[in-house]
């Protein structure tokens, strides 16, 4: 029993240490960019734009497909049940609840973890192994500012944009099907949809996606930095970072949902 407590205690301390390390990357990279030396800002801004392009623009196609298909599926499943009770009017509300409040942010985050999270962990891991991080430091380049900051802000901006886009296209999928399948006129459907969409829902969607974006950028960088000198550590770091990122995304999603919707 004592051993069990000891193990739990050690694990707890490890987790606190881990979270402290990850949070430190976020806080210090922002401080460095906003309040540190001005030198390097131009170069960092260019990397930031590339990161938004890579994470956001290049993911648009897959996000569009998945969002529309998901919107279709949700509408098919709900209408088949709701029409039995004559409650087709609730379709709009269900689309809002599922796509804006929950599935939109979570699924977008999962897609970005799969595309960008692994790419970031692998990139930073390879940079560590190839002594590129040391090379940057030897040139007087702040690695928090050069590596962490543009990824943090770039991935966060891209995640917010993609999540809004996902929710919009998911709803569009629902609209397409509804217009084909149901007897509800589109104008009425829009009315139902927008009367159920509250400003708070949009703000929470942005809050969730901003937090998910920060997690997706920071955890892979943290694991990439933690690699010592062997290239065999790189895939391990990528896998670990994906698992950890997903766990933290689900934890924060539950916390935010519980705070705002209970």
């Amino acid at each position, binding site marked *: 029993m004592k051993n069990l407590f000891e193990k739990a205690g050690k694990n707890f301390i490890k987790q606190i240490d881990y979270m402290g390390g990850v949070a430190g990357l976020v806080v210090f990279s922002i401080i460095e960019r906003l309040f540190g030396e001005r030198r390097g800002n131009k*170069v960092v801004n260019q990397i930031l734009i590339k990161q938004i392009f890579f994470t956001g623009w290049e993911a648009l196609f897959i996000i569009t497909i998945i969002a529309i298909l998901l919107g279709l599926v949700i509408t098919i499943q709900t209408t088949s049940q709701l029409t039995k009770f004559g409650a087709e009017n609730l379709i709009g509300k269900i689309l809002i609840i599922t796509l804006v409040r929950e599935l939109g942010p979570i699924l977008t985050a999962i897609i970005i973890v799969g595309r960008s999270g692994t790419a970031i962990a692998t990139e930073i891991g*390879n940079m560590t192994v*190839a002594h*590129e991080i*040391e*090379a940057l430091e030897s*040139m007087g*380049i*702040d690695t928090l500012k050069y590596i962490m900051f543009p990824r943090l802000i770039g991935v966060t901006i891209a995640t917010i944009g993609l999540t809004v886009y996902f929710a919009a296209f998911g709803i569009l999928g629902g609209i397409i099907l509804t217009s084909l399948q149901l007897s509800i006129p589109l104008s009425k459907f829009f009315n139902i949809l927008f009367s159920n969409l509250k400003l708070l829902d949009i703000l929470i969607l942005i809050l969730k996606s901003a937090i998910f974006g920060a997690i997706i950028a920071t955890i892979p960088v943290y694991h990439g930095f933690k690699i010592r000198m062997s290239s065999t550590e790189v895939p391990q770091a990528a896998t670990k970072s994906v698992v950890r990122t997903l766990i933290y995304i689900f934890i924060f999603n539950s916390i935010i949902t519980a705070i705002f919707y209970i």
Partner: protein
Amino acid sequence: MENLTEPLIRVEHLYFKYPGDEDYILKDINFEIYSGEYVVISGPRGEGKSTLLKILAGILPVENGNLFYNNLNLKGVGKKKLMKFHRKTSFVFQDSALISNLNVFDNIALPLRYNEIYPEEEIQRKVENFIKIINMECDKNQLPAFISIGQRKLVSLARALIVEPETIFYDEPIANLDKASRDLVLNLINERNKKGVTSIIVAHELEEFEPYWTKFIELKDRTVHKILKK
């Protein structure tokens, strides 16, 4: 050269071991280097020469002992002071350590662009000049993965020289290079040294450096075995 009043670098009772290791890779290292010296550090493989060079360059931390650079103790030095120190020095890595997602031109330009010392036109002019010197006009838009190991080394050298540092640390600068590239690298190192740049070189090719060094430090049994001066 040693008649100058203060040494540029002073190493006192330096010990070092990597995290997780039980044994020290460097033990009780002591020496001084004066401004403008041409120092060659040599010794058998695995004696910690590259580790020592990285400590001298502020890339690895000073844990036990002291390391003074212009009277600044690098042991426990703050981030701002360390960055300032890095901007006065350059490091040529054994395995080049070029930034893999930047092409040859941008790799050489990176320290100038980041530190915003010159306007972009001046940076372009300087980088083009170095690209000519290392004969890489045709490959300037290539990523490091698509050029040879020797070419990578030359790019790494150009990146170190372009910032006109007061001290340059070279880790095996001529290893794995053909004769022409070796001569080019040796010329560039000598040229800089003649202009007063302190050169600290880890190398095995002693006969190549013999005509030039002013101080020779040999490491053996993980400590300084002998120091020769010219």
